[in-house]
């Protein structure tokens, strides 16, 4: 436990003493903030017009028209940015030859993997928390439903955490950070595209929705917490971590 935390602390120190974490966090705030701004401006325009139409205005909901689109857009921004966060985690150890220290210290591969995973998840948490000021601002003016916003955040967190586990896996395969980022981006994009396929195929729709990250995100962003969705994210994260573990074990024989 202490060893995992030592690794996590080391990774966090490196994240915050190099531009990586700052760039990823500010890009996220910028892109998500921009989307939020566009969505909410659009919404206030609509509400203004709806002002003299009681039927229309009774159907306007902040949750429906702002938070749901915001969360699904933020999810795409995570897909773009998290590979940049995770790319260094193993690739850089290999390139800088620090893995010769890491793998000769009294550490297990599991401790190393979980430690690095925790560090990236901490940065993800900072990213999400940092959006709270503008996301919760409307609560001071009007009364949207709180629960769907909170589950939306939970969804983003779980989604991001599974992106991170696959980013870690991609990073364990190479000593080139760019290759790691491109590869994890490709995996995530593929899973996203699979979700798009669910709109056109009906026969496989259920299955495709089941394996895609985003199918499970929909419910959460609407405020529906289904244990099946939570279990999905947990197991996908475990798959990513296990693949990383397998790579480290196999690579032991090639050193």
């Amino acid at each position, binding site marked *: 436990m*202490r*060893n995992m935390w*030592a*690794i996590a*602390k*080391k990774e966090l*120190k*490196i994240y915050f*003493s*190099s531009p990586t974490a700052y760039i990823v966090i500010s890009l996220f705030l910028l892109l998500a903030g921009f989307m939020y701004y566009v969505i909410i401006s659009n919404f206030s325009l609509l509400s203004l017009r709806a002002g003299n139409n009681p039927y229309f205005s009774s159907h306007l909901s902040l949750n429906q028209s702002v938070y749901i689109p915001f969360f699904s857009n933020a999810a795409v921004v995570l897909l773009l940015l998290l590979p940049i966060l995770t790319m260094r985690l193993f690739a850089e150890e290999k390139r*800088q*030859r*620090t*893995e*010769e*220290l*890491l*793998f*000769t*210290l*009294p*550490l*297990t591969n599991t401790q190393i993997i979980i430690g690095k995973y925790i560090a990236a998840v901490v940065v993800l948490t900072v990213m999400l928390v940092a959006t709270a000021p503008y996301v919760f601002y409307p609560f001071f003016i009007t009364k949207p439903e709180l629960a769907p916003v909170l589950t939306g955040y939970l969804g983003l967190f779980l989604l991001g955490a599974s992106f991170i586990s696959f980013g870690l896996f991609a990073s364990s395969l190479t000593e080139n950070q760019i290759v790691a980022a491109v590869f994890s981006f490709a995996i995530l994009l593929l899973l996203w595209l699979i979700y798009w396929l669910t709109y056109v195929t009906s026969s496989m729709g259920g299955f495709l929705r089941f394996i895609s990250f985003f199918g499970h995100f929909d419910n959460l962003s609407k405020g529906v917490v289904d244990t099946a969705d939570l279990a999905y994210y947990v197991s996908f994260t475990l798959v990513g971590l296990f693949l990383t573990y397998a790579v480290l074990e196999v690579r*032991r*024989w090639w*050193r």
Partner: protein
Amino acid sequence: MIRAENLTKYYGTVRAVEDLTMEVFDGTILGFLGPNGAGKTTTMRMLTGYTTPTKGRAIIEGLDIQKEPLRAKRLIGYLPEIPPLYPELKVSSFLNFVAEVKGLHGKRKKQEVERVISQAGLEKVALRRIRNLSKGYRQRVGIAQALLGDPKVLILDEPTIGLDPKEIVEIRSLIKSLGGERTVILSTHILQEVTSVCDSIAIINEGRLIEFGKIEEVQQKYGSASLEEIYISAISRGGEA
């Protein structure tokens, strides 16, 4: 004590180390000699558990490094050929990280970090980022890291490379003082280093161990020849020994 049993490593068809067997007892400081590409680094990597041997076993204080890696690794301080440093970290954060992983916490961690900082002469750069250090200082940080936790076994791959003459003398006397109960293996290309620091030598060529033993004993075998002569004669005999 370190025991290498028939250690063998092939990279594909490239033979790096072949059937290397040796026992290094407590209190020994062993100088590991051999031409470039002889297999010194590969042997050390197998002893520290970084590399998995193709064949054979590495035993540290009675523990097989492959079978009981955690317990065995706790006993080893290792300086790899390229000092393993995180350029983004400050010297002190780096040493704190290694100390924590070696199981040192709280007051003991603080004391140990301070001790190795002074042993490796790092006081002036303790708060600098490793990225900004000169080559010699990086090497010293690598040495300091290996000394943390006062390990029973030290494996140092070319420890004095890149140091200035004054520092070489200091590090050598430091290594010499480590003898006593510990077991030290250091590789080097400087024969003078072996004479001044080590009591035993191992000469390896093309992956095979050619000469091994206490320096005086080996010298006697060669008719009291100098280390230079012994080295040249041993490696020219090549891998047939």
